[in-house]
């Protein structure tokens, strides 16, 4: 089906190849998951397999990628994608029309298919992704999971033999991810479609019984099971004295309503975050997690009986001094990179808040070392991988030593090792600075290992999750639940 032999690739702007002699054989109807640390070249390999890197060439390549008697390097993209189709990381970016029906019809219309056949293919592909109910919907009304479904349906309608997905679960909640993988499994079984998934979420691999390869140092390897079996660091277990040491309230809201476009979209009965606490917040896509965070720093309006942040009233006019004590890491790292080098990016917050003479401005060296950017400190941040950019965002936020950290899905694009690293950094920071962290995430299996309190958003209401019994049980065990897999 796909035959890759000794394939190497380096981007035009870099001397070191990112892929070094990749060998891969993919059979008809096979289900392959490729994992690897962030920045290891997964997206590059996905784009190479999809034929995106060659016409025009994005860099220097050697070796062979062959399928159906065609060579990726010599084939125009429209010919190659008849057999191998890539669903890109953000489905919204690849939509070409404004509604679901037009989107699925788009490729078929370009291939001059007749309306009768187009109608059949739309019905078939939407049925295959269990999305028949979406046919009349506007693209902008779709949730993250629904967007993935439509992107896959648009691909399936073109009848490719191999479907490649680049980190399909990165923006999805666990339920949507599960549904998506069920859909893919059904496709594989019904139309004998080969599926290649580039993914961080290792727990999905065993669950769906796929072949697994790891991309490491530019090559594909069989997975090393030992890497996934590490002990829980001891500091994740908190004893009573640590719990008693929680300090004053940094966030305190009661009967709190978040308002978006004049409408109350979220109700919070009671939410509290104290010094030295790490609190997890989860909820389905579109439930209002980000809106809650934005409202806390006054970027979205709110109404409440009590609404305090760092002992100040939450409002759209939070003082500059209060803002300097709040660190906010946004979901998409690309939206928060403002400088031309990694070092300047880390200095950006401290200079803005305190001026260039402040001692905090000289803290960047320490953060560069901690976050392992020593050999990249002069790099342009946009040259970093998605995961590296995410870590740089956190470093840039920690640089001005905020008292309160509001972190929006910072685990997206991070492999297990780096998630562990981020947790270690946060845990240490919370104790050193008597700070607190509110972390929005889709990883209950991870957060229940380190968070002190758990909140969930369901049906427009933010409430406390009763996980304590569960948490104590899990924390008592030595191995990470997800690592066992």
């Amino acid at each position: 089906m796909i035959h890759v032999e000794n394939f190497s690739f380096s981007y035009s702007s870099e001397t070191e190849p990112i892929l070094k002699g990749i060998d891969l054989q993919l059979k008809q109807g096979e289900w392959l998951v490729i994992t690897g640390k962030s920045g290891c070249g997964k997206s590059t390999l996905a784009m190479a397999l999809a034929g995106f890197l060659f016409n025009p060439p994005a860099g220097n390549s050697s070796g062979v990628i062959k399928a159906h008697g065609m060579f990726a390097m010599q084939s125009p993209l429209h010919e190659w994608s008849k057999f191998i189709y890539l669903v890109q990381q953000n489905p919204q970016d690849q939509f070409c029309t404004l509604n679901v029906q037009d989107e699925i019809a788009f490729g078929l219309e370009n291939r001059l298919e007749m309306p009768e056949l187009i109608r059949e293919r739309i019905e078939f592909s939407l049925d295959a992704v269990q999305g028949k109910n979406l046919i009349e919907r506007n693209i902008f009304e779709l949730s993250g999971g629904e967007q993935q479904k439509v992107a896959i349906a648009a691909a399936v309608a073109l009848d490719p033999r191999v479907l490649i997905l680049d980190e399909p679960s990165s923006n999805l909640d666990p339920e949507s991810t599960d549904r998506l993988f069920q859909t893919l499994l059904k496709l594989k079984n019904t139309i004998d479609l080969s599926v290649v998934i580039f993914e961080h979420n290792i727990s999905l691999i065993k669950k769906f019984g796929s072949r697994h390869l790891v991309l490491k140092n530019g090559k594909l390897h069989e997975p090393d099971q030992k890497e996934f079996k590490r002990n829980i660091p001891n500091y994740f277990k908190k004893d009573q004295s640590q719990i008693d040491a929680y300090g004053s309230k940094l966030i305190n809201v009661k009967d709190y309503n978040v308002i978006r476009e004049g409408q109350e979209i979220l109700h919070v009965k009671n939410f509290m975050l104290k010094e030295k606490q790490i609190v997890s917040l989860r909820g389905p896509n579109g439930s209002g997690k980000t809106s809650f965070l934005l409202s806390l720093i006054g970027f979205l309006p709110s109404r409440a009986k009590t609404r305090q942040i760092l002992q100040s009233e939450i409002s759209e006019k939070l003082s500059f001094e209060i803002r300097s004590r709040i660190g906010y890491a946004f979901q998409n790292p690309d939206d928060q990179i403002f400088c031309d080098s990694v070092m300047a990016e880390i200095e950006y917050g401290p200079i803005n808040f305190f001026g260039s003479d402040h001692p905090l401005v000289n803290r960047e060296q320490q953060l560069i070392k901690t976050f392992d950017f020593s050999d990249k400190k002069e790099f342009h941040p946009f040259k970093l991988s998605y995961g590296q950019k995410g870590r740089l965002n956190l470093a840039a936020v920690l640089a001005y030593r905020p008292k309160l950290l509001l972190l929006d899905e910072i685990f997206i694009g991070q492999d297990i090792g780096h998630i562990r690293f981020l947790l270690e950094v946060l845990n240490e920071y919370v104790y050193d600075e008597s700070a607190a962290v509110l972390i929005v995430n889709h990883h209950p299996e991870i957060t229940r290992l380190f968070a002190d309190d758990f909140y969930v958003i369901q049906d427009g209401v933010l409430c406390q999750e009763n996980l304590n019994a569960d948490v104590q049980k899990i924390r008592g065990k030595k191995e990470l639940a997800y690592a066992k897999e």
Partner: protein
Amino acid sequence: MRRNRTRPIQYAPEGTILSRLNPLTNSVLVILATTILLLTINPFTQLIFLVIIIVLFTLSKIKLLRLQGMRFLLITSGLIGIIQLFFIHQGDALFFVFGIAVYSHGVQLAILYSSRFISVILISYLFILSTNPNEFVYSLMRLGLPYRFGFALINALRMLPISHQEIQRINTAQISRGARFKLFPVSRLILNTTQFFKVLLISMFKRVDALVYSLEGRGFGLSQKRTFLKTNRMKSIDWVVILLAAFFLGLWIHMRVN
């Protein structure tokens, strides 16, 4: 949950009285109606047209005062009227306001220009609220607009809300990291603004990159022509409405000339 009181000026699926018509019919109607409004010089006829337009909104169950920007529209229209009232000194002096005489011709022009301004804007609102932009562009392509231009338009429409959200996100991220968009020091303002646009541009380029792969991968632009799933054919009602509107315009021009 409390409902938003303002209705944005954008196509809504529930539509208006014109929504059942083909988008092309709607566009022809808007052009004809605007021509008639601009040709009308009798202030009272202009007022009648305004009333008809308000009736169309009422029949479409749209509360005019809840439309986005209505306050601005009314204020601007009022100002246009006031300028006519106080600066046109022709005809008979009717009354005095703050010692300034208001003349009969001034009143007539105030009614004419104010109501014309409101009518033209409202008729374009009605078109936007009634017409699915996607269907409109598809109809134009079916009519002969080269499909590459058509899809350029569709993607511009698609990118608008995305770039709006992107602007908000980047701005929020920048402010949360201490950036201040104050006039002084000017060098800081220039730096912050440059950084903002740089992030926005890079982000949009990335989106365009993804879109290009998607377009090319799905064979866009490969042939001179393409097939269309949707026929978007004109129905008899469309032709009847267009003919009636054209007849009305012809009659109107005839009456104006003679």
